[in-house]
């Protein structure tokens, strides 16, 4: 029973990690690549850590796996948000078939990000 659960976690986690790598390899745009890499990989690492915890079946391993999954689930979205913000401000070109850009007026196609400064000099 435990081995079947371990095998299911292993296979689903490996498929998700492969999907994340394939998305990073094939997507046309940095933001789409980030979207593929950040979400699928965090869930894949969580499933594989869960597989290690279930398969080894030790209390200390379970505690460490839970800690690692909690850290990954907290840190990966924050890192993805910050790197996307930095890339957008640096004026990275969007994919030409991106059809919704809510900051279009600040970010003309391919051009750098030009913030409208408020009265205190902050955008």
């Amino acid at each position, binding site marked *: 029973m435990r*081995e079947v659960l*371990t*095998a299911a976690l*292993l*296979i689903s*986690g*490996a*498929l998700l*990690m*492969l999907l*994340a*790598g*394939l998305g*990073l*390899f094939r997507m046309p745009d*940095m933001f789409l*690549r*980030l979207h593929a*890499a*950040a979400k699928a*990989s*965090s869930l*894949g*690492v969580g499933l*594989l*850590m869960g*597989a*290690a*915890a279930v*398969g*080894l079946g*030790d209390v*200390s*391993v379970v505690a*460490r*796996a839970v*800690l*690692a999954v909690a*850290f*990954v689930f907290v*840190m*990966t979205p*924050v*890192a*993805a948000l*910050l*790197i996307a*913000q*930095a*890339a957008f*401000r*640096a004026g*990275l070109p969007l994919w030409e078939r991106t059809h919704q850009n809510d900051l279009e007026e600040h970010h003309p196609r391919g051009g750098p990000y030009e913030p409208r400064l408020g009265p205190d000099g902050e955008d």
Partner: protein
Amino acid sequence: MSGWLEVITQGVLGALSIAMMFSLHRLIRGPSLTDRVVALDLFSLQTAAVIAVYALWVGQPELVDVALVLAVIGSMGTLVIARYLYSAKRRRS
């Protein structure tokens, strides 16, 4: 560990190495610096996953510590580089 589970574990390690090849390609050929940073983040997560699966394969619970530390440190580096890019852009404008 029974035989079929060991075969599945080896297959998972093979799939993870293919995924690491993909992210290594993006790390080398990425057109921008942020692409490389994202690829490095994903590469460290994949290394942590490989170490966790290897710990399961050889039955060494101590190796999970290494995977834990690697999973924490990798995202930390991405965060620091993102803050650096953000502030470097602001100072120039």
